[in-house]
């Protein structure tokens, strides 16, 4: 494997690994604080049990999130020193705010996880709320740094050097808001549906009980609201990309030729040689409408860009289809959930519904991984869009592929251990929590 490809894969792998823990780290504190709050208000032990059971699992995810994040902050330099040399002073500000958020988070988390019997109940609850807020803040900061790579601003690029740096402008670049909103929603969707799915699966296996039923409900409240908002946020992002990064839009829609009106290409396999998409569903005027709100508008295709400036179409297009399909599926389940819980509560106890929720478990995280693939691969060949090429940023060290193999092996092993640990954790739930035995 050549070193450049290895570096890209290592970055992708490490980020793809970290993002799972980051999503959990942003969402679970909110779910736990919500559940604890219900316990404080109602005094029902089932809410306390859920909070405690979750917090045991979450502690593991947090630790792995922290170490994999630490790895990332080094990897940016280990793999892309030239990028960091120029980008560091420009996007260092969001990273330093992120550092602050981590501190607050780590401190509050220590208090939340280990302070059950040492603190006033409301102080304990407040520490959980602080973990949630700082987790979301750190997500926003780091996504702004990434948004800057898509939409660089706050500096002038003169003779291969950044001058007149304005870190504030760089942080609040054109893409930060839509990317942050989309990311936070994504975190809530992916984690909530995964949590609801696992508890639904346990209901199927072990029969209904108060513990799992309440856990599914708590998670779905958050997940469904976010999942219904997400397609709107995604549409907002796509419209923005059409202006900001037309090559990325063309790649994710697999639009080889600039067209007016442009058709929406659903599914299919893009073929770069023939510049067409096989086996796809074509909706006339669809893309024109989605990007410009007008069925007749012109949409820029890949033909407007020289070959060496085009992102890989196949990966970007397929990843985009996976994200959107998962998004629509989850939004559909969410609408059903809200409708049922207003008027047809008995349906929520039906087996087919529980099976549906259980089947939805992986789709949120699938969409997160696919979405990041779209964003990052769609930015290629640029590491800083329009400014610096990825291949010019890579470390000159020979043998980078060895670190890729090692990191990959370690992360796969860690993932297996975590899955196994969670299984052990889950199988002991009914032993530790009484509400898990109540019908």
């Amino acid at each position, binding site marked *: 494997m050549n070193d450049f490809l290895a570096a890209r894969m290592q970055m992708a792998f490490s980020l793809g690994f970290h993002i799972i823990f980051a999503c959990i780290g942003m969402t679970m504190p909110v779910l736990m604080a919500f559940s604890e709050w219900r316990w404080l208000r109602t005094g029902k032990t089932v809410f306390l049990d859920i909070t405690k059971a979750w917090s*045991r699992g979450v*502690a*593991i995810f*947090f*630790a*792995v999130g*922290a*170490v*994999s*994040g*630490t*790895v990332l*902050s*080094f*990897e*940016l*330099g*280990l793999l892309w*020193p030239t990028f*960091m*040399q120029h980008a*560091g*002073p*420009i996007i*260092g*500000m969001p*990273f*330093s*705010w992120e*550092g*602050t958020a*981590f*501190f*607050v988070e*780590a*401190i*509050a*988390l*220590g*208090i939340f996880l*280990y*302070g059950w019997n*040492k603190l006033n109940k409301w102080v304990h609850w407040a520490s959980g709320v602080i973990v949630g807020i700082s987790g979301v803040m750190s997500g926003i900061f780091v996504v702004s740094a990434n948004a800057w790579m898509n939409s660089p601003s706050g500096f002038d690029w003169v003779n291969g050097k950044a001058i007149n*740096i304005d*870190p*504030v402008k760089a942080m609040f670049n054109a893409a930060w808001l839509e990317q942050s909103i989309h990311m936070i929603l994504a975190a809530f969707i992916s984690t909530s549906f995964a949590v609801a799915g696992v508890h639904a699966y346990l209901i199927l296996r072990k029969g209904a009980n108060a513990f799992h039923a309440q856990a599914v409900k708590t998670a779905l409240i958050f997940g469904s609201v976010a999942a219904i908002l997400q397609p709107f946020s995604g549409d907002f992002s796509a419209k923005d990309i059409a202006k900001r990064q037309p090559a990325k839009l063309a790649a994710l829609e697999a639009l080889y030729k600039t067209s007016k009106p442009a058709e929406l290409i659903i599914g299919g396999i893009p073929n770069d040689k023939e510049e067409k998409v096989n086996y796809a569903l074509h909706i006339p005027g669809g893309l024109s409408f989605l990007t410009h709100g007008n069925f007749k508008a012109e949409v820029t295709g890949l033909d407007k860009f020289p070959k060496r400036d085009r992102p890989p179409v196949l990966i970007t297009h397929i990843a985009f289809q996976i994200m959107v399909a998962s998004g629509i599926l989850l939004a559909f389940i969410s609408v059903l959930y809200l409708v049922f819980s207003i008027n047809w509560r008995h349906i929520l106890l039906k087996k087919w519904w529980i099976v549906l929720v259980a089947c939805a478990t992986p789709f949120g995280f699938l969409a997160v991984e696919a979405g990041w693939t779209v964003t990052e691969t769609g930015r290629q060949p640029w590491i800083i869009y329009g400014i610096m090429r990825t291949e010019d940023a890579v*470390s*000159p*060290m020979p*043998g980078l592929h060895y*670190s890729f193999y*090692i990191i990959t092996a*370690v992360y796969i092993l*860690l993932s297996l*251990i975590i899955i196994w*640990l969670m299984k*052990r*954790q889950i199988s*002991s739930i009914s032993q*530790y929590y009484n509400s898990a035995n109540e019908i």
Partner: protein
Amino acid sequence: MLTIIIIILGASFLLYTLLGGADFGAGIIESFAGKREEVTISKAMAPVWEANHVWLILAVVILFTAFPLVYSSLSTVLHIPLMMVLLGIICRGSAFTFRHYDIVIDKSHKYYTLLFRVSSFVTPIFLGIILGAMMLGRITFDTTKGFYEVFVAPWLNLFCIVMGIFSACLFAYLSALFLVGETTIERERKMYVRFSKRFMLLTMLMGLLVFIAASIEGHDLLSDFLHSVTSLITLILATFLCPVIWHFLNKQKNKTIYLRIGAGLQVSLILIGWFYIQFPVLIKMKSGSSLTFFNTQAPESTLQQLLIALLAGLILIIPGFIYLFKVFKIKSNSQ
């Protein structure tokens, strides 16, 4: 402005050495202690280890924001030892948490423990190696010189390795002193006192070896110290604190707080002394030139924003930290 940033960078490095160091050291001490001590050690570390390690992240972030060239140069030429540190950090953090949170206790705990101990030992060694390589002056960016000369030779040498072992001993010493105050069992307390003494002697010995190894490798560390009055004084004070701490260790009822202040002071003195002879150099290169705080600093506007973020952060963090340690360290001791 630059001065304040350098002070904060130095402080976070110092705090990482003290707090993170005691965490690493705990893994080393555990290897020499018994089964039962594992519990004390885990209990002492669990609530604070994550917060302790954020100091490293802070230092890295300050480095790449304010001194980007230093960050990118280090991560290019010291790729291999940095990678080892990362692997150590991953393995150590995960193994510790798995051990602490795995509900079922069986054979798997043996593996967590093994991994935790090995990585607690390996990581500080490579941290020390990296520091050594920064000061030794063998670093070059001329990639035509060949892989070994550029990516291996600057850190794989006697001096750097001795620096690595010195760091591991220092961390173990810090940790042993810290643990003296963490246990209520007399037998355990005695054992940690013993460990503290042994690792104090070992650290002093390794400190001596650092000077010897330096001169073997042609880096005259001793005369550097002799030329700087401040550094010499800090070194002497740090050495003088040894008998003082020894005295407090011998007392039947240990005044934990004195031990901790003493150790903190010692490490701070050593680092300040080292900082003085290095300043303003961050990386000494083979060519004779060096990367310093001054020739790598980011533009004013960046430093200003960084400083705002750091100061705002400190206002939030310091009370938080004090609260965390109050809840877990002081209360648990008085119970």
